[in-house]
């Protein structure tokens, strides 16, 4: 998000979901789209059916790689090498869009010098992707006008996540693939309202609409609107908050997140939570974090309240109340209003409609959006939408890049924080599956999903499994410098040799006991995608008993 704000001036998908099917080339990197965003996956399938070329860059084999023209199976964490080498090819072959660069960008001069050493041959050595494939895909991308890049957390969940985004931005800017339908750079959002949470100011550096807290004019505007003095000091980001928990952070309010499942290196976080003075939780289910809480507020779920979710393509859409919440549970907005009032603030809101109206009133990007206009236009409204005459924006940067000039940010490769070594020779990445969602508080309570995918597992290449005498379905311990968990082994060529992969949905085998909490320097996003690990078979007397093999349906495409 921060990366795209810096280079393009807006941290969101440049295009709309419906434009994907009309693209002539899709470059999907760090996104297992058919599992994490199944409906966008369908759009990609439509494009390929129509004849679009598909480039998939992912350390694992995924559904999309089975229909891709190229699968660049890079080693985890080497994205900058791959992307810089592609940029190197485009530059060397003279395929840069000089007119676009001259009119719409700045900082290009510094790029060639940085790129010079990122030759495809050197990149092959680091990434494991054949130089010929790097050349072919770079040329194909540069020569295809309707070329869209889609990426997800495989790009951002690294200690160098922002560098990865810069490297992608450079590719887009040097080829001018921006500002029209079906071409651009598209971060696919993981949660229903990640985009909306950012948009409405739930960030330590921005008020709603990406207005900086350290900008005196903005501060004055909000002091006037809210009637209180405000702090001009940017706050801590999530990663910093978690690391400071129990140190400088002594009290927390947490809404709708199971932090001891979802945050990295959770054993350290748990130590911190034991030391804090006060913890308030607000959620729909008891979770792993509730044992640390001093107060727990029961909240309504999405079917029990009104509001707006903002999707990945910046579309503000309505959420509508269909049923009453159970027991005494109340909508989060109702609880928040009362809590703020109990703490002495005078919040004069009646409900979601006027809360939204206040949010939009002070944020120029959303000023033309209201409940009334969302109803009137029928299918939500995509920001920017600055006044009542605008129907919203289907793709960004049409009449020029929002930042003014697109910014080239040349980047050098920096290795991940923790690399494989003799003691921990495997590289662990974590991710999501089709059948579960995040901490699985909802999906593991659904009737069918646990049947399809009942338990935690780790994917292991047959060669790595053989060397450790591990067979398919065996119980194994997965170890890193931070912790150990027990789960089943799935022997699969879906992962490459030396790499292991596991979903993070399962409370009894918390992948985040293993992960590192080193964050990206700009965003604080933790490196969930790379850490050093080892796997050991658990002797049969120690293995958990009772579960039958027949219930084991992890859904791999490459089972041996």
């Amino acid at each position, binding site marked *: 998000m921060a990366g795209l704000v810096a280079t393009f001036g807006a941290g969101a998908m440049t295009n709309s979901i419906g434009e994907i099917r009309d693209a002539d080339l899709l470059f999907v990197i760090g996104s297992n789209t058919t599992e994490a965003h199944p409906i966008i996956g369908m759009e990609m399938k439509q494009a390929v059916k129509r004849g679009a070329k598909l480039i998939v860059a992912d350390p694992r084999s995924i559904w999309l790689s089975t229909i891709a023209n190229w699968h660049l199976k890079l080693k985890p964490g080497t994205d900058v090498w791959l992307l810089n080498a592609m940029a190197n090819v485009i530059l060397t072959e003279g395929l840069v869009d000089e007119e676009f660069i001259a009119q719409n960008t700045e900082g290009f001069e510094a790029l060639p010098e940085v790129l010079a050493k990122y030759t495809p041959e050197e990149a092959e050595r680091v990434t494991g992707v054949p130089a010929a494939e790097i050349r072919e895909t770079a040329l194909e991308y540069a020569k295809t006008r309707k070329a869209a890049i889609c990426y997800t957390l495989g790009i951002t969940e690294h200690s160098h996540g922002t560098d990865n985004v810069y490297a992608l931005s450079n590719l887009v800017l040097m080829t001018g693939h921006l500002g029209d339908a079906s071409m651009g750079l598209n971060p696919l959002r993981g949660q229903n309202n990640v985009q909306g949470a950012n948009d409405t100011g739930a960030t330590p550096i921005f008020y709603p609409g990406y207005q900086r807290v350290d900008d005196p004019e903005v501060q004055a505007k909000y002091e006037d609107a809210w009637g209180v003095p405000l*702090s001009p000091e940017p706050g801590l980001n999530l990663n910093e908050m978690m690391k400071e928990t129990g140190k400088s952070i002594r009290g927390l309010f947490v809404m709708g997140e199971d932090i001891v499942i979802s945050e990295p290196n959770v054993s350290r976080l748990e130590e911190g939570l034991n030391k804090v003075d006060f913890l308030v939780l607000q959620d729909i289910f008891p979770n792993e974090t509730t044992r640390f809480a001093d107060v727990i507020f029961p909240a309504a779920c999405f079917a029990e309240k009104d509001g707006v*979710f903002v999707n990945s393509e910046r579309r503000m859409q309505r959420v509508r109340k269909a049923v009453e919440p159970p027991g005494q549970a109340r909508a989060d*907005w109702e609880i928040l209003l009362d809590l703020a009032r109990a703490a002495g603030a005078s919040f004069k809101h009646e409900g979601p409609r006027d809360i939204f109206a206040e*949010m939009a009133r002070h944020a120029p990007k959303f000023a033309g959006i209201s409940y009334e206009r969302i109803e009137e236009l029928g299918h939500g409204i995509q920001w920017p939408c600055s006044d009542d005459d605008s129907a919203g924006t289907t793709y960004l940067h049409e009449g020029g890049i929002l930042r003014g000039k697109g910014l080239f940010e040349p980047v050098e490769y920096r290795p991940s924080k923790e690399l494989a070594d003799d003691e921990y020779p495997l590289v662990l990445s974590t991710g999501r599956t*089709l059948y579960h*969602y995040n901490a699985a508080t909802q999906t593991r309570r659904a009737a069918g999903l646990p049947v399809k995918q009942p338990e935690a597992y780790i994917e292991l290449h047959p060669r790595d499994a053989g060397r450790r005498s591990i067979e398919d379905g065996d119980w194994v311990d997965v170890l890193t410098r931070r912790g150990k968990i027990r789960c089943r082994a799935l022997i699969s060529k879906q992962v490459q040799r030396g790499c292991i992969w596991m979903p993070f949905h399962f409370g009894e085998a918390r992948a985040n006991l293993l992960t590192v909490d080193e964050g990206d320097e700009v965003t604080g996003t933790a490196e969930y995608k790379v850490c050093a690990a080892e796997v050991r078979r658990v002797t049969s007397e120690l293995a958990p008993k009772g579960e039958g093999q027949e219930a084991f349906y992890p859904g791999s495409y490459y089972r041996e």
Partner: protein
Amino acid sequence: MIAKTGEVTVDGVKVEFGQGETLLDVSNRLGRHVPTLCHDERLAPAGACRTCLVEVEGVRRMVPACRTPASDGQKVTTANERIDKHRRLLLGLYLTDHPAGRSDCEDGAPCELHAMAANYEAPTDWTPIPLTRAGRSEDVNPYIQFREDRCIACARCTRYCDEVEGVNAITLAGRGAATTISTVDSEGLFDTTCELCGGCVAVCPTGAMAEKMPLTAGAPPERELQKVRTTCNYCGVGCQMDLNVDTQASDGKGQVVKITSPPPGTPPSDGNLCVKGRFAYDFVDHPDRLKVPLIRREDGELHEASWEEALEFAAKGLLRVQQDHGKDALAFVSSSRCTAEENYLVQKMARVAFGTNNVHQCAAT
């Protein structure tokens, strides 16, 4: 629409058409409701159900409107005595191996065949034909069942599985009257490439592809449920969906008993949903839901409390941290799962009531 390529006359009205448009597209645009059972705008035309047959001047046989390209100068008739007679007889034939009473047939989803038959006053008293279509009752997947007695072999489901979801898990099998919907070796869906998106259920016109979720199975027929259009709460695609509510259930609080998808063409999801969106909703009513505020009392245990007490306890606790350690000793974690309004309130509360910018949503990247 792409550039105009010609003009046809539909029921006496002249109308322009564009590249690739069929007689069905043109008729629909004019508001002439040509009936279809096998058509879905996301799918390539199949011409399988024969209900959309229309007359074209100079062509002796009637032609399927769904797969006849419009061509310049055509004169098309979408309804007359001959066409209506054809539709009436065809629908009567369809009904001979279909559950007879409309209300019996529509115990779950509405039946387009029965609705259309009623519309055309098709004969309902023809001798029933014994069913020869094989089912797959041994399939143990928890979501999707195939009710062979309701199937009309229109193949919307198999074509959706192939052309939209792209997994080819189900297929037409058998011949003639025994044509059925099956899988490779009649395996259960768990043992196929099926990803349980439930698109087959959504596109089925007759309820032959049906849900077997416990909540849905025990619910009143879909036509008695209240549909509430909303946005899915899982990933960031923002698919539109209709919560189907049994308003009488749960002592009048209402219960979500089914999720259906809006029509094709509805942004951003084109009427599609995935396994989570369509089926993972029963958490809403799960007994584990938090129902009462809890506070940790001096014994170190969590106890039930009134809202008033819990809110005061929480506000005091946070303010005490602020007094003891300063404003920036507090941290507020907001949620990418909650609404825009709620995220707005969390940051406003952190900044206004507690004086800190230490606020971040949980999915920061």
